[in-house]
């Protein structure tokens, strides 16, 4: 049953002292999928991801990542997994090219380091010392080190924090290209539009549990949630919530004799509305 799953967790638990960071979390990520984990700070996202990466021990529950328990991770398993942590140490006195080449040497079938540097958009910086890079460029180097081993599964923990919009778009293209090549990606992010742009499915963590999982379009019954229809009527903006927006629009069309309904819009809740609702902020 778990063969087509890259990540499987059931009843995952982890406490720090008396505080339960992860409290019975269930998660299943299919091979080849881009899965985004959303959740407020302190919800248990990073703890969960670090257990899956083999960095932290769990207190209880079942976990399988690429068919192996990450608590018993060996070199062969690590060669199949790429990790981009939140803010990690750089090798300050080395150049971008040197670091990427050095890391490529850890893996049994690495990608061409020069091509990887190019792919993350650092081709012009290959001879720069890493301490001379900007925050966004450092993050790209982190990504380069995460993918140089050609992983089957890639963890991206808040990868685009500090990116400008242009850099973020370029990064999205990179993630899409990796996904198109068959890489499974588990992404955590604070940017809901990023999850919407990249993820096949989205999971929301709060209080150490996964409270909802679905495609970005359908999360939290978003697709069937009441729509809001607004239009302008005699100098005044009118707004109506309805489960049957098509019927309302048809009725409005009749009311305006088949002409244009002034300033007509039909909107569904945004992913952000649904998310805030799920984590109990609304």
């Amino acid at each position: 049953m778990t063969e087509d799953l890259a990540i499987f967790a059931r009843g995952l638990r982890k406490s720090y002292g008396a505080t339960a960071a992860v409290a019975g979390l269930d998660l299943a990520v299919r091979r080849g999928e881009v899965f985004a984990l959303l959740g407020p700070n302190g919800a248990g996202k990073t703890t969960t991801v670090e257990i899956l990466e083999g960095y932290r021990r769990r207190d209880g529950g079942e976990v399988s990542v690429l068919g192996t328990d990450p608590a018993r991770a060996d070199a062969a398993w690590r060669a199949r997994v790429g990790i981009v942590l939140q803010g990690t140490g750089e090798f300050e006195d080395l150049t971008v090219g040197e670091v990427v080449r050095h890391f490529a040497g850890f893996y049994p079938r690495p990608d061409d380091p020069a091509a990887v540097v190019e792919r993350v958009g650092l081709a012009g910086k290959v001879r720069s010392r890493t301490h001379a890079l900007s925050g966004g460029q450092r993050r790209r180097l982190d990504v380069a080190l995460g993918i140089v081993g050609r992983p089957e599964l890639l963890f991206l923990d808040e990868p685009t924090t500090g990116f400008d919009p242009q850099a973020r778009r370029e990064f999205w293209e990179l993630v899409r290209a990796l996904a198109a090549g068959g890489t499974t990606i588990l992404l955590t992010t604070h940017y809901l539009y990023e999850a919407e742009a990249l993820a096949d499915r989205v999971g929301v963590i709060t209080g150490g549990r996964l409270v909802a999982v679905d495609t970005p379009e359908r999360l939290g019954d978003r697709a069937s949630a009441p729509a809001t229809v607004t239009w302008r009527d005699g100098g005044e903006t009118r707004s109506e919530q309805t489960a049957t927006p098509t019927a309302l629009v048809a009725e409005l069309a009749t009311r305006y004799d088949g002409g244009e309904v002034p300033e007509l819009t039909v909107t569904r809740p945004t992913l952000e509305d649904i998310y805030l609702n799920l984590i109990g902020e609304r």
Partner: protein
Amino acid sequence: MTSLPVLGARQGGIEIKQFLRSREAVVFTMLFPVLLMAIFGAVFTQEITPGVTFRQYFVTGMIASGLLVVGFQNLAIQIPIERDRGVLKRLRGTPMPKAAYFLGKVIVVLVIGVAETVLLLAVANLFYGVDLPATGEKWLTFGWVSALGITACTLGGIAFSSLARSGRGAPAMVTPVALVLQFISGVFFVYTQLPSWMQQVAAFFPLKWMCQGMRSVFLPDGFAAQEPAGSWELGRVALVLAAWCVGGLVLCLLTFRWTTRRDG
């Protein structure tokens, strides 16, 4: 998968590259013992016994201390900093084996240690009347005392690196330990003139035995009578240093942490 010796050698290569590029580290690591040698060498000029000056005694101890600084002090400070900055955590996420990381550290320490020793030996020989080992046998003793000594210090340094909670706290913990060892092990003072309890404490640690081994190489044979046991005790030197190598290795493997404590 690439073999461990190759991975270790590459790790060593990249460590040496990083060391050479951080100019402060090069200057301070290499020149601090030379500076100490120059200061003490200028101050203490009296003879300890006929034909042996305190200078010669001290300079011999500084060669042993150089190994302590390069192996122990350097690593015990540097590794917590790397741990704090997340360098170790990142390496842990790759298939690189733990042993390759240790091997890389050992290689960089050996290279710096050899360079440091050559430098100190040259200064000692040119300015402080310390003769190079006269016989093949003395060179051999010099070789194994240095090799065992630096290995013990390196492993001790890696093991000690797990004690510091943070990179910021590491120098404050490590520097006094290294300094106190130098005071009680017969570097800054003649060992046999120290209070006996101090001698007994020092005898638990490698530096005292490294200094004694070095004296057997560089001081006249007659000076052996001035040692605590009335001889150089080279067999015991080898034994204690080897025990520290084994114990240090075990401690490294048991206590080494890739992440900071708050990081799980």
